[in-house]
Every structure is written in structure tokens, then in C-alpha cells.
């Protein structure tokens, strides 16, 4: 580790807080640029999707249990399970699957 963990923490916190606080304090009128609005609108879904797959396959002891958890998560979220329920279901799925692998 050649980088200082406190500088890492300071940098990430400063960026996160700026992202949340600056729009609220600086932007008093609506953003009009449609492309920029659209980009901001799609970013969260794309970012989270990229971070979830294929990483979920390597988060567990076996890629099979990760894949089944992914399927269970998509399925339950599609049919309206809450954030907490989806999260717990994914964990339980991995735990049970790995009993048999």
C-alpha cells in the first residue's frame, strides 16, 4: 500500500459530499439540456449493472452459487420484492446452494 488510507477517505468523502450538496445549493433553476439530463438519468442504472455483473460471480466460493443468486435477485426484484428482501434472498440462495456444491 503506497497510498495513504486517510487521503483516500478524505478524497472520496469530499467528492461524495460535493456531488450531493453543490446541486442543492447552486442549482436554483432546472437543467434544460436534454442530452445532459438524459445522461444523468441513465448513469445510475448503467453503473450499477456494470458493477454487479460479472462481479457477483466472483463474490462467492463458487461461480455457480453467484449465478443462481443473480437469477434469484433479478427474479425477485422484477416481481416487486423490496431492497431488503432482494438482498436477503440473494444471501440465502448462496448459502443454500453452497451446501450442495
Amino acid at each position, binding site marked *: 500500500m503506497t497510498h495513504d488510507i486517510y487521503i*483516500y477517505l478524505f478524497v472520496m468523502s469530499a467528492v461524495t459530499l460535493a456531488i450531493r450538496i453543490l*446541486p442543492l*445549493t447552486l442549482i436554483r433553476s432546472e*437543467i434544460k439540456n436534454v442530452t445532459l439530463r438524459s445522461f444523468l438519468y*441513465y448513469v445510475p442504472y448503467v*453503473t450499477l449493472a*456494470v*458493477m454487479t455483473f460479472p462481479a457477483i460471480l466472483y*463474490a*462467492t466460493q463458487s461461480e455457480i452459487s453467484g449465478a443462481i443468486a443473480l437469477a434469484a435477485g433479478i427474479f425477485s426484484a422484477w416481481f416487486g420484492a423490496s431492497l431488503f428482501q432482494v438482498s436477503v434472498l440473494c444471501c440465502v440462495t448462496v448459502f443454500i446452494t453452497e451446501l450442495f456444491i
Partner: protein
Amino acid sequence: MTEENRRALAEGFRDGTPIGLGYFVVSFTLGIVAKHAGLTPAQGFWMSFFNNASAGEYAALTVMMADAPYLEMIIITLVANLRYVLMSTVLSQKFSPTTPFYHRIFVGFDVTDEIFGISVARPGYLNPFYNYGAMLTALPGWSIGTALGIVAGNILPESAVSALGVALYGMFLAIIIPPAKKDKIIGVAVAISFALSFLAKNIFPDVSGGTRTIILTILIAGAVAILKPVKENSEEKNDA
């Protein structure tokens, strides 16, 4: 404090309690990741207190584990949290002109997907005390959960750690799948993101996860924004 503000605080606390409990469980698994990145429980607590962001903190921890440059930390935190620009902008429109300025700073301190979700859904002007009520459970839930994950993560059996390891991804899926079901374009964007992320990981295995996230996000979200710009007001419908 006026009667109205006190009531908003109580309602925020009530609506925020399930959020805080959910945060506690999920952030525990974030703590397990933080432990691998070499954080102490106190460092994990403060990281979560000031960031309160699952995707953003997870992305930042991958930067720490890779011992990557500070510039990459800035960019990845920016990209992973970029959605808060939109949420914070939407909230800025809900402030009454008579609400004192400093409330914008404190409300902005903890704009999360869930707190945004419950506060934007309330009719009329935003009462900052409602957000403060929700923050009273969300912030401790998330910060203490992270610290405990760092403390207790390594005394759990391997099978339990493996199972808890997917909790964060479950949370991500719960955020992206319902809008993907409602809006076909988001659904396609998510499917393309899965596919390209998988391909990129296999074709360029040496590129770090953080860099992959940044490049793919800008490429895919940029392309979709140009090809399928969001029509007026459709995002408010999705957020509510």
C-alpha cells in the same frame, strides 16, 4: 422547533426506520469488503458516515484494494455517485423559497436512493426535518453496520461470508431491476451493460474494475442519452 417541524421529524424517523435496518445489514457486508481493503473499524465508521453510499463506497474500496492513484479515486467516486447530482437537483426544486439556505447543505449531506425516494414522494414543499428524521436511523444504521462488519466479518464461517458477499449486489439489483421493468430503454441499457461488462472483463482482464466501470458507464449511458433522450417529466414518474 415548530409543531409542524416536530411532526415532520417524527414521520421521517418512522419512514426511515426500515431503511436504517436494511442499511445495517447491507453495510455489514460492506464492512467485510472494507476489512479486505485494510480499513480499521473507526475508518469504516467515518467512511460510511460521510459517504452513506453503497455503490460509491464499494467502488472506492476497489480503488483502495488496487492501490490505485488518487485521481482514480476521484473519478470512480464521481461516476458511482453521479446519480445523486440528479436527485439533489430534483430536491433543489422542492425547496420553499422561505426555507433557510443552511437546510440545503444538511439535506444534501445525506441524499441516498432511499431517502430521496421517500422525501421526493411527499406532496408540496420539502420539509428538511422529514429528511433529518430519516437520517437519524439511516446514518447510524449504515455507519455502525460497516464498523461491525470490519470487526466481526472475519469471525464468521466462510460459508456465511460467501453468502453475505452477494448482499450488496442484491441491493444493486433491487435498485436497477424495477425501473428496467417499467422503462424498456433502461432495461435494454442494463442488459447491454451486463453483456459489455462481461466481455470487457474477459477481453481486458488487466484493466481494473474501477476503470472498467468508468469507461463503460460513460460509453453506454452517453450512447443511450444521445440515441434515446429522456422525454420531459418521464424521470419524475420513475423516481416517484
